[in-house]
């Protein structure tokens, strides 16, 4: 009876679907050979997914999706909780911005994704290239990290419409 009531709750189903999407995107993004690379440039579809989820689900759910996405990414990365902290902040900030000063639509999603991807990539570059004194800093930024941001942005409409469809179909 209880289980049946839970399964009829659209909010629960919707949030479960979003969590499943985060898991799926994390695996697609971080498993070699599952997601296409263009001339060595990799996309990060988790970024538009977390911003879209935070835009629709707002600050608290947004930060929890961010935390989940970041924690999953950290399993593949060698840097403590860098991704979990980053995505927690992104999810919360996007939710707060939509709550207070922005409207939830495709243009704002593009804007938030661009900002989030740029902050992630430049942050990663600063941490792994500039602070470690690595050579070819600017080459790496221009060759991989800025194009990676653009590639991520190209994917963002697809991710946004996926989340939007999910939200519209499963809204109470």
């Amino acid at each position: 009876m209880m289980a049946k009531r839970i399964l009829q709750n659209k909010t629960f189903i919707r949030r479960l679907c979003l969590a499943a999407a985060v898991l799926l995107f994390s695996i697609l993004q971080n498993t070699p050979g599952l997601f296409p690379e263009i001339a060595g440039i990799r996309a990060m579809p988790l970024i538009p997914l977390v911003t879209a989820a935070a835009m629709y689900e707002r600050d608290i759910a947004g930060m929890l999706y961010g935390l989940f996405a970041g924690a999953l990414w950290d399993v593949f990365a060698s840097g403590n909780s860098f991704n979990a902290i980053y995505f927690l902040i992104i999810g919360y900030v996007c939710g707060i911005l939509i709550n207070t000063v922005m409207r939830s639509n495709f243009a704002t999603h593009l804007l938030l994704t661009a900002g989030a991807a740029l902050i992630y990539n430049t942050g990663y570059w600063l941490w792994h290239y500039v602070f470690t004194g690595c050579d070819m800093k600017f080459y790496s930024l221009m060759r991989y990290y800025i194009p990676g941001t653009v590639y991520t942005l190209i994917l963002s409409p697809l991710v946004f419409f996926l989340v939007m469809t999910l939200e519209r179909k499963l809204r109470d």
Partner: protein
Amino acid sequence: MNRFLKSSGFKLFVIILSALIAGSVISVVSKSGSSPLNKAVSVVFGPASRLAGSLSSGFRNMPVSFRSSTYYKKQAEELKKEVDSLREQLVDYEDIVHQNEFYKEFLDLKEEHSDYKFTKAAIVGRDAADRFSSFTLSKGSSSGIAVNNPVIYGKYVVGTVSSVTPTRCVVKTLLNPGINVSAYEIRTGEVSYVTTTAEYSKQNLCVMPGLSPSTAVTAGGLVCTAGISGIYPADLIIGSVDDIVDATADISASAIIKPGVDFSQLTDVFIITGFDGQAK
């Protein structure tokens, strides 16, 4: 502003953020390179990434086939099926040959060094943001793996474990500028260390700096681990000398090293979890 700071959302945000930062501090103190959250997530969602890794290698091994369409005649379809079947057999055969080669080299090493303790692991993922060929393996501390354990393929060095959770570990390869391995060239016996730079890493090369200006090391020479730091056992092959160049800052020479294995093609590796002389 006051209302925002007192909101339950902000309080929850601060609590989670503090917990994450505390977790990071714990991971640094415990020298495991992974926070408690990271460990928990890797245990819970480990099977999903392992499944994805298997799917990924399945896709790579899938023979290219052009299935029938309406204008194919029955005979052509049957021939196609036969070709597909033979291709699949060929893939299976190549897999077996690959596995045999992998285990043969491992067996040689095992016979030469009875003190080595090994764990075999499959590559299940890689960080999408990393440019230095790092990857995630399917085994972790529950299999006896610890930070700084050397990772090998046959007799060749691949890299070292940089962080570990109970079911996963992340490996930094020789193509990461943060990795330094004490090394010697086998013909001349010149000792130095092998590292890389972002520029060489891009070309899948390493560098052995600090050689004497009149070094006798020449292209084609073999470079092996010296075992000085206690992280790598001695005499594992790093790669071969590709070229000798003058250093830009001083009068020393540097050897450009081509690693013995192509890290992008690896699917399985061995982790040395113990050996005589290992640094504790």
